[in-house]
């Protein structure tokens, strides 16, 4: 019996490809909260984020990936592409779904108000800036990891971060 707790994501993926379904469950348990939170923040919609999560992990299971590569970055890249395609389909302004937030928090309180404010601020940013901010603030990724996920140069990520900080500051000042 393999002890999955000792293995990293690449090791677990190799086990899964050899037919160990338990290894896939462990990968899902470790990585799905991050991917889901990221998708919810980008899309502002629970149900769409769940669809993105299902699509991402199904592709992960179907693909024959090189375990020497960064599998976490691959997952986030697939989730990002799925989010982009959903955002393109909607073609409307991103809205924060208050009802879904209420369902998540139960009774509206200070936490709910804060979440609503954060999500509204994020929805004011352009997609490419919002993604960088979420990966940095919520997933605590380095600029290089973000560049790997978005397949763009390091300098582009840094400049997007800089622009989004200025924009967020302006938005916060407008609100206050």
């Amino acid at each position, binding site marked *: 019996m393999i002890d999955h707790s000792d293995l990293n994501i690449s090791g677990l993926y190799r086990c899964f490809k050899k037919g160990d379904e338990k290894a896939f469950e462990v990968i899902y348990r470790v990585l799905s909260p991050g991917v889901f939170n990221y998708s919810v923040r980008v899309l502002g919609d629970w149900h769409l984020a769940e669809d993105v999560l299902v699509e991402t992990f*199904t592709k992960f299971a179907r693909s024959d990936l090189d375990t020497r590569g960064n599998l976490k970055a691959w997952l986030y890249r697939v989730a990002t592409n799925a989010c982009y395609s959903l955002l393109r389909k909607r073609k409307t302004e991103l809205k924060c779904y208050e009802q879904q937030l209420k369902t998540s928090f139960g009774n509206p309180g200070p936490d709910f108000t804060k979440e609503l404010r954060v999500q509204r601020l994020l929805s004011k940013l352009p997609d490419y800036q919002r993604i960088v901010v979420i990966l940095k603030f919520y997933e605590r990724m380095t600029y290089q990891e973000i560049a790997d996920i978005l397949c763009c140069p390091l300098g582009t990520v840094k400049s997007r971060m800089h622009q989004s900080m200025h924009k967020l500051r302006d938005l916060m000042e407008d609100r206050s």
Partner: protein
Amino acid sequence: MTCSELKSHLVDYRLGELSPELEIGVNEHLAVCKKCSVELKQIGDTVSGFEGSARFKPAPGVYKRIAEKITVLKPGPSRFLGMPKSMVFAFGAFMLGIVLTKSIDAIIISTRRVSGIEVRQEAPRRVPFSDTVEFYSVPAKNLARI
């Protein structure tokens, strides 16, 4: 460290994700540069708006959806008795060919016996030496030249 170099590190500095060496460099610069200190304070105010916000978790039913999809997509075992399926198929086709050939031979022989035709195994034909050697004929007019 210059002001432009520092700007790309300010968010990481505020989040506490800089390496110790870089952190020392940033601290040294901030001690002497008022403009960058103001910039850091502004970034700090922005970042604090996001601190402590919730991380959403997927519903338990989502894994079931993925597991169902994977089960549908998953192909059957690619090996049979420890051998690749293609090899098993090739071996099976070879054996079937042998069986078919032998059975067709048996049918032909049994049909001839029924019809009274004698089936004899012929001895291999011996090829005469002259059949295998080629002789070059030279025309008479060329013989004179030789």
